[in-house]
């Protein structure tokens, strides 16, 4: 490419994008990718391949020539299947033609929701540590992210009083991502009810990112939208990625009040047209015949979860017991290291990749996220390595304290 000195690409990039901080994980990714022999517990997706019958449904659809656009909303059969699924699993009733939109993963659903409701200056409450995209998308919409810290002492439950304290006349939306990435926390009933009361009192909307809803180890899945009075105020974003091991298919959905949904459809039809038909075909098969796959995978995750939590605790790490998703989020304070130091040294010294907790928000400092969506064999080897590492640094930290 010839270089023109007068051309300054930076001048053309909008200040909002320019000032957007690159994901903390990105930097760490390069470090891990350049190290050989690494066992990665930093992966945020199932280690299972999409069940064969689901892949086969997609192959068959292709063979039969399903290569065209679908309705903007998504295939009617798929929307009906989603509605039936939400009814059966969560007791939620949505009209398949007016309240459900098939999206490019839950990610698009989150983006659509925020773009649909935010005016510049609107404030968005975001309990953290949390998934990395809420804050940047809020900023892209001109919104103001207002973080609500959560703590291990309170089992990473968002504190309704802390939420209320941060509400201003500009507050419009509360984002809830439970089961939570990175902590694995799920909302307990009292907290949910108390949050619902705050939401009602201040006339807020809720964006419920329930992509991990199916991965629960303490009972059946629950949706925030199923609380009294909450369905109309909740934009429910979910998808197939985590429950059916379908991350690469990029297929999800959003369910909401008909008027909110119609508004979201406007953006979706201009920007996306429709989700890929082959992914929609696969998703349909997943909902029709894939529920048994979920219970198999949940059983496997659950076994690994118990093992990992117990091993981490035996090492002397203070580890909150996750009730959902496939992450554990232990405190690493006994090692005297910061999250990033821990992650970088563990990678260098023992070749295990974990994600520093502060990548998910300031309250994640002092923690690391380990995914147990990894084969049992790898998981056990990684735990042995972490054990060695923690023992070394705990001794050092003690020596310094006594020194």
């Amino acid at each position, binding site marked *: 490419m010839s270089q023109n000195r007068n051309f300054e690409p930076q001048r053309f990039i909008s200040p909002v994008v320019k000032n957007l901080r690159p994901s903390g994980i990105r930097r*760490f990714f390069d470090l891990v990718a350049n190290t050989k022999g690494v066992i990665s517990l930093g*992966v945020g*997706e199932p280690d299972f391949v999409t069940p064969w019958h689901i892949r086969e449904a997609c192959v068959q659809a292709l063979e039969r020539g399903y290569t065209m656009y679908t309705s903007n909303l998504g295939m009617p059969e798929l929307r009906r299947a989603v509605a039936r699924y939400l009814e059966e699993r969560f007791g939620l009733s949505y009209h398949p033609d007016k309240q459900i939109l098939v999206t490019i993963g839950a990610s698009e659903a989150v983006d659509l929701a925020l773009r649909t409701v935010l005016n510049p200056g609107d404030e968005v409450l975001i309990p953290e540590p949390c998934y990395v995209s809420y804050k940047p998308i809020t900023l892209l919409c001109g919104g103001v992210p207002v973080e609500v810290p959560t703590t291990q002492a309170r089992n990473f439950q968002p504190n309704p009083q802390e939420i209320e304290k941060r509400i201003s006349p500009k507050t419009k939306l509360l984002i809830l991502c439970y089961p939570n990435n990175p902590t694995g926390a799920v909302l307990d009933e009292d907290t949910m009810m108390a949050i619902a009361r705050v939401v009602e009192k201040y006339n807020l909307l809720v964006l419920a990112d329930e992509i991990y809803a199916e991965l629960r180890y303490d009972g059946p899945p629950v949706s925030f939208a199923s609380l009294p009075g909450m369905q109309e105020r909740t934009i429910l974003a979910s998808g197939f990625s985590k429950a059916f091991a379908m991350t690469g298919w990029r297929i999800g959905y959003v369910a909401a009040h008909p008027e909110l949904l119609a508004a979201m459809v406007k953006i979706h039809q201009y920007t996306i047209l429709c989700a890929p038909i082959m992914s929609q075909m696969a998703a349909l098969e997943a909902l029709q015949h894939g529920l048994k796959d979920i219970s198999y995978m949940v059983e496997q995750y659950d076994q690994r979860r118990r093992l990992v939590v117990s091993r981490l605790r035996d090492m002397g790490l203070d580890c909150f017991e996750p009730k959902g998703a496939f992450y554990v989020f232990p405190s690493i304070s006994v090692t005297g290291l910061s999250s990033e130091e821990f992650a970088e040294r563990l990678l260098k010294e023992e070749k295990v990749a974990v994600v520093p907790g502060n990548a998910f928000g300031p309250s994640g400092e002092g923690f690391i996220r380990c995914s147990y969506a990894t084969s049992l*064999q790898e998981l056990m080897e990684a735990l042995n390595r972490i054990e060695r590492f923690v023992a070394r640094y705990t001794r050092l930290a003690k020596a310094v304290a006594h020194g």
Partner: protein
Amino acid sequence: MRKNILKLLENNSKLSPKEIALMLGLPPDEVAREIAEMEKEKIILRYTTLINWEKVGEEEVSALIDVKVTPQRDVGFDEVAARIYQYPEVKSVFLMSGSYDLSVLVQGKSLKEVASFVAQKLATIEHVQSTVTHFILKKYKQDGVIFEDQITERRQVVQP
């Protein structure tokens, strides 16, 4: 509880009772006791390892042999089956429905060895009517495990 323990062991017999207990949320001594009892009751027969011998460079020939048998009064196929499974060359014996009666897996060092075992030992057993030998050319999958090395990590190493 037994079923869950067995399902774990079937996949990975290296798991210790303590690990199994953790994974299932059960007391470790109870799991250890249960395993010991299942060994005694011959529910657990052996702790095996699934090996891809081809990778070791060991030449080994296996054949599946369809055996037709004249069933015996009162004992049916059991007596003939017992005669067949005594041979160490015979790795497994199944009674089948369909066009033949016993399916016998025979292993040997060479094609010749297996063939002569069938001709001289198996086919000559009383009440064996006929045998059809199928040599195994390649193992793709066994006991739920795919032999090909295609299942390397394909996911991105770190993701939010």
